[in-house]
């Protein structure tokens, strides 16, 4: 039998069900892998081994008593540090939340816990999900497990790196402008950003409320679908969560088929300066492979794409400037106790607690909402957002799924994206999806000749997850990359 840490989520569930291993063994194997690999990757911020093993033992006891919560009872999941798990720290990789313990479960987390999934540590991220490299973590950077001189992407860099390195079968992340899909692409794992409102945001520490969405990172499309099944559906605690029942995504994968599927390639996406040849080639190859399997390739146009980055950075920072106002040290988290008065407490707490990128975005967001500037920035950005959404609506009259790069290049070297503007530009392929509120998935599709993963992005219309995941499954098969783990 292979080492347990190498099992995918579905394989682990099957092994547990068949009694080939216990949850305790599974978790112990993963903890061993973390001990071996994480010193080089630095994906985990905290990992309470005792709590994990206790939860695994409880799961094993349930299984022995025939009272398993679900097929997945006992499967561990790494959790991004911005998702509330009752009794665990939830620091958003920020110094300002030092000492804070979440008093409640995020809805998505709670639903997975009800199925028996075990929270497996807190994984690193760019502070408050602001960044594309996990270098903006207020604690320490995470490194790309395939090449530790490179970044894992961000902001869910810890989630992607942990899954890629075999330190967790799957992880939860959040995606505001590409924060699941882009690190998934850089680390060679599957990353799904569901339609806005499909997964409850309750318990996800807000960066940009109208853009944030929780999603899974996993080593297979099937695992991502299983986790989406477990998390999705209306939540009365989140007013923006969509009504109705959803799910059945994993089951629908059995019918994955691209025959007759219209695959749209947005012409503007291939005109981006800085699109690396190996990325362009990988996308082209996959388009051809899908055509071979019966899909039809169509060119679509998203003419307002050029406004996406500006629009995104106005809306996201505006919302963030208010969302992050609550971090003042008064009720929880770190406080500057040496400040003389209220104003100084606010100033010093926030000056010391927040990192540069977070401060930059708060200032930007405060500025665009200021009296006299609101109409010129925020209001115009909202109008542009509507146009961007309409672009996609028009494109989906011509095609069923859009095929695109995830990022212009494979994982950059550390420090390479230190210029904020350059970092923002790298989000070009992912942020429109959040602005339009639709769904997108990053699937590994190639490996460069230096061994770096190249991801490919599929973009579906609102609530188009079933077909999106089915198509991703075909991409996964066509790419035929097999099981790979970095040497750590």
């Amino acid at each position, binding site marked *: 039998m292979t080492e347990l840490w190498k099992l995918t989520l579905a394989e682990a569930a099957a092994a547990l069900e068949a009694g080939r291993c216990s949850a305790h063994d599974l978790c112990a194997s993963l903890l061993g892998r973390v001990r071996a690999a994480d010193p080089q990757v630095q994906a985990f911020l905290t990992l309470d081994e005792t709590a994990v093993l206790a939860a695994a033992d409880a799961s094993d006891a349930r299984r022995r008593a025939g009272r398993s919560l679900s097929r997945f009872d006992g499967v561990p999941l790494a959790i991004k540090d911005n998702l509330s798990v009752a009794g665990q720290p939830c620091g958003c990789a920020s110094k300002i939340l030092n000492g804070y313990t979440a008093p409640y479960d995020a809805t998505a987390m709670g639903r997975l816990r009800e199925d028996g999934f075990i929270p497996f540590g807190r994984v690193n991220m760019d502070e408050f999900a602001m960044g594309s490299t996990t270098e903006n973590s207020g604690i320490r950077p995470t490194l790309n497990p395939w090449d530790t001189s490179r970044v894992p992407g961000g902001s869910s860099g810890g989630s992607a790196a942990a899954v890629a390195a075999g330190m967790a079968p799957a992880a939860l992340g959040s995606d505001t402008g590409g924060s699941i899909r882009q690190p998934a692409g850089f680390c060679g794992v599957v990353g799904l950003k569901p339609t806005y409102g499909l997964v409850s945001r309750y318990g996800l520490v807000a960066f940009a409320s109208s853009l944030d969405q929780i999603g899974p990172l996993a080593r297979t499309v099937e695992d991502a679908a299983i986790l989406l099944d477990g998390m999705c559906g209306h939540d009365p*605690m989140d007013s923006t969560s969509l009504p109705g029942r959803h799910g059945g995504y994993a089951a629908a994968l059995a019918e994955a088929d691209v025959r007759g599927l219209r695959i749209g390639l947005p012409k503007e996406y291939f005109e981006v300066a800085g699109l690396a040849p190996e990325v362009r080639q990988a996308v082209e190859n996959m388009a051809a492979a899908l055509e071979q399997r019966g899909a039809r390739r169509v060119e679509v146009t998203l003419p307002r794409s050029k406004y996406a980055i500006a629009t995104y950075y106005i809306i996201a920072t505006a*919302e963030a400037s208010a969302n992050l106002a609550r971090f003042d040290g008064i009720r929880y988290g770190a406080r500057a106790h040496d400040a003389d008065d209220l104003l100084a407490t606010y100033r010093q707490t926030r000056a010391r607690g927040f990192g540069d990128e977070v401060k930059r975005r708060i200032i930007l967001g405060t500025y665009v909402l200021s009296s006299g500037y609101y109409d010129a920035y925020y209001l115009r950005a909202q109008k542009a957002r509507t146009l961007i959404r309409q672009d996609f609506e028009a494109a989906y009259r011509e095609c069923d799924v859009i095929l695109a790069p995830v990022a212009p290049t494979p994982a950059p070297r550390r420090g390479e994206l230190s210029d904020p503007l350059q970092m923002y530009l790298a989000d070009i392929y992912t942020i429109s999806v959040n602005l339009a509120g639709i769904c997108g998935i990053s699937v590994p599709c190639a490996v460069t000749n230096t061994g770096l993963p190249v991801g490919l992005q599929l973009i579906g219309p609102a609530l188009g997850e079933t077909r999106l995941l089915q198509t991703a499954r075909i991409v996964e098969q066509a790419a035929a990359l097999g099981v790979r783990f970095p040497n750590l």
Partner: protein
Amino acid sequence: MNYEAVIGLEVHVQALTASKMFCACANRFGAEPNTLVCPVCLGYPGALPVMNAEAVKKTIEIGLMCGCAIALRSKFDRKSYFYPDMPKNYQISQYDLPLCGLGHLAVGGKGFSGDPLPDKVIGITRIHLEEDVGKLNHFGRSSGVDYNRAGVPLMEVVSEPDMRSADEAYAYLTVLKQICEYAGVSSCDMEKGQMRCDVNVSVRPVGETKLGTKIEIKNLNSFRSVHRSLLYEIERQTEAVRAGEKLRQETRRWDDALGQTFVMRVKEQAHDYRYFPEPDLMPVVLDEAQVAAWRAALPEAPEARRARFVADCQVTPYDAHVLTLEKPLADYFEAAAKAAGHPKLTANWIITELLRELGEKNLTIDTCPIPPAAFGKLIALVAGGAITGKSAKDVFAEMFASGKAPEVIVQEKGLQQVNDSGAILAFVDQAIAASPKAVEEYRAGKTATIQFLVGQVMKLSRGKSNPQTVLALLKEKLG
């Protein structure tokens, strides 16, 4: 030159709901600090608001009572500023699309000074819904925040600058409170902070149409302090303008102990609230039929009730005004009048006897020991001639003290009015025999003396004789 004041009020009224505006915590006053809190109303990371539909309904109801235009599409916005009483450092409020638009309130009656006010209509600019903030407590060198109040639904009623005197402002507040209580949308207890008021006041020469420099007064926690601060501020501003001083736009704080206002901040220090639409909440969409149903179910407005009391119950307009000032009193009156079958007499007894007694005992109509049906029964006994008016006052006092039913007290004390001429005749004879001097005077033409004799008969019968019968028999006997 004569000056006039221009006054507008911003009144915050807590909505009477079971739970808070955006979470399931109880909306209740007086609990131990920080016991009615949860991740949502404490602004914990990741928590999200969910709108309380009952609070929206209450706001629409008060809007309908004030004749406001109801917005079928409304939304919430974030209002940003830092203060420890506000858990998120932004308040969820409504900026450009409030639930209720233009409306009006009719004021009249008397001002705080007791002077009668002419009837006048005060415009209402808007009514919007927001969340209340926590309460700061200072202990020597440290401070604490109680977040029990944070997230309580708060309706803000903004008036037009239509008031011209402190008395008018007082009358407006009285009517607004009255309407909120009538509609059951708030308890309006100012001591519990359920109703709070900010005042905008400026002065200008009479005849001028342009507004003067606006001063805002904060920290007003009673109608009395609104009235006092306005008197103070109008005088201060008028003197300043008279002296040629140029006022600056500022916010002032009322110090109730000193009876003065002090500068809190000037215009340049005003907050930029950076309003933007609340992304965590969907727009509020109401349909016409729903609003119509709420409108149809509204309680009778005080104005309408007043008119009905005058027309149907034969009470004077002033008595109707007194009876309708508070809804519980008007309800009491209606219930008592129904039991009595004599509304006019019931009104008289409530105004002269009941309200006096309540006032003396420091009680309100809600804590009145006599239930309205029992009070009505007492009136019925008087009206039907079963007891005399004099006995009735004793019965009333006993009812107030013991809570016993009036007929029981009448029985126990033997206060049934004596209507039997034979029995009364015996008392009449006794009185005549005992007062020869009075009899003589009466017969000599001093007819008023008969009242003395009536009194004697009543005394002998311990107040139970029918006074009309006594009078008739005396006249007959004395020829």
